């Protein structure tokens, strides 16, 4: 699946877009763990102390924050999905 990183996460990853090969049907939470494994410096920004998706990261699937999708962190991802990953972001 294609993962786009934004803002300070992009700086840590070093590029905007990364192709990650997770099994079809992996959960959003599994994606968070894969990101933490690939970029250890991001681990505590994407995974919380209980192993869930941290509140300091937002995974957008089809423009929806997975937090608001019915299955939340358990939302299944397809290999063809594009996921946008943001740190908390606001301005004015």
């Amino acid at each position: 699946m294609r993962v786009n990183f934004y803002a300070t996460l992009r700086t840590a990853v070093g590029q905007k877009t990364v192709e990650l090969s997770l099994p079809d049907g992996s959960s959003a939470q599994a994606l968070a763990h894969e990101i933490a494994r690939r970029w250890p410096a991001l681990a505590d920004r994407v995974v919380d102390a209980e192993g869930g998706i941290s509140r300091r990261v937002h995974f957008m699937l089809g423009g929806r924050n997975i937090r608001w999708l019915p299955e939340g962190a358990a939302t299944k991802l397809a290999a063809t999905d594009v996921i946008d990953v943001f740190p908390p972001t606001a301005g004015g």
Partner: protein
Amino acid sequence: MDLQSFGQSMAHVDLGAGDVEIRPAPDEWVRKFIGARGLGVRYVLEAGPDVEALSPENLLCFVNGPLTGSETSMSGRWACVTKSPLTGTVTDSHQGGWAGARLRWAGLDGIIVSGRADSPVYLFVEDGKIELRDASEVWGKGIHETVAFFQKRYGKKNLSVNAIGPAGETLCRFAAWLNEDDRAFGRGGTAAVGGSKNLKAIVIRAGTQKSRDVDADAWKKVRRQALDRIRDEKNITSPKKGGLSVYGTNVLMNVTNSIGALGTRNSQLTSFGERAEAISGEYVEQNILVGDPTCHACPVACKKEVEIKQGPWKGLHMESVEYEPAWALGANCDNDDIASVAKMIDQCNDLGMDPIELGNALSMYMEASEKGWVEGNGLAWGDTLAMIAMTDAIARREGEGDLLAEGPARAAEQLGHPEIAMACKGQAVPAYDPRGLKGMGLGYATSNRGACHLRAYVAAAELGVIDVEVDPLEWQGKGELVKVFQDLHAFSDSLDLCKFSAFAEGADEYAAQYAVARGEPFTADDVMLAGERIYNLERYYNNLAGFGEGSDTLPARFTREASTQAGSKGHVSELDQMLGEYYSVRGWKDAVVPEDKLRQLEIP
């Protein structure tokens, strides 16, 4: 400077008579309305809500808050409050930089301007004194040249020049004041009020002053608590680490684009797709960023200074590329050329105009042109050279620019198509599409100064950057949330702290700092009560000025034309349902504050 005596030194300037008098604000007003925004609205009410905005009788109030210029973080702000020539409502707008702080250090808490000078004048403030001086040499000049002129005359050191440009002089209805070249009283056309009074500038000279009359230990402690929150790495304000600090406000471009909340082509679409990246904070940071300027006492440094390295605007060095103008002049006008966006922001800084209103005027005209509704040459989507030429023409009211200088709402009305103006109460919408961020839409509709993102920045909750986190597409619960944000911001705008303090601080921190600064107890509940009182005072003014039941609206595009883009696809704004909830928690009868509410809140 004495913090506790805030409000004792208000300068009243009658431009017609040439008189200046310094006297205290009524104690009761300071107690009830705090300062800056709240106190300014109370002053403006004195001229009567029926006053013509561009008449000599309208009051133009520049008001500090009790914390302005103090050592507390993000306290470099002051408010310009008046009746708006754009909306006919009371309006207030806030500048960063150092001008407000310098006014405080020079010994004044505010300047209340009335009348009209026979010829162009400026105000010179120093050592507790304020004088009217001749401005004929700078009348007609751009703001950059005006600033340079006064810097040559008075020296750069400790000097702030707050000026209007040609747009204010020609009474463009969205003309803005700017200090230090690029910090604006941006919204509501306050500089047209300056132009109508023949007031070109306020020049202030004052060195830094420390607060003398506070409990030093307590003051240090409450400031430290607030600063710790701002510095906390979990917050977007964290210096050099948080998104706001690293990328500035334009860190938002990609996220609103991703969730289908980035109005595009005059809000006909809700996403700019792949093209948003080219006008985003990330792009700016990687390609054209040269500095991170800040304001008085602010470690966040969210301002973004850029230099254009190629193309027709090569060599342009300016600040600041913010999210709002990058949206208004970018995606909203189908323009993905960041250099042209920087150029137009700099034009706004020099001509003295609000880039949000400008971008909406241009996008409205582009849609009208496409549909064959204009008589002149019209404007094509994303035609940057034509946009830049039109920006100049608007400020000088030349050709088609004269129509657009009226603002998009009036201009669309004159074209016979009011439905293509994306405006509430005559003021154009900012960069959060109400179909993708439902609470922001309710905030636009119920804002007392016309469409505005800063009256109730519920995006902080809808985008998940504060502890309260809500689904942006859910309408239920937004009525109460918007009220809470409106009241909290009304208080911080009256202190006057930067709005972005709310990403790290809350009512507890505001109350603690205000209590020590005033030397009297003040709680978080008092913060919310004072904020509610100020919000209701503004609403009371607007009700008297003719904004009655049914006046809280959104353009039909947001309530009837469903989004077709990912994230918000199929959604419209459920404004009526949200308004029902909102009026119920406000205790209002539709858009009107009832008598018992006024009495309960001690208004006026």
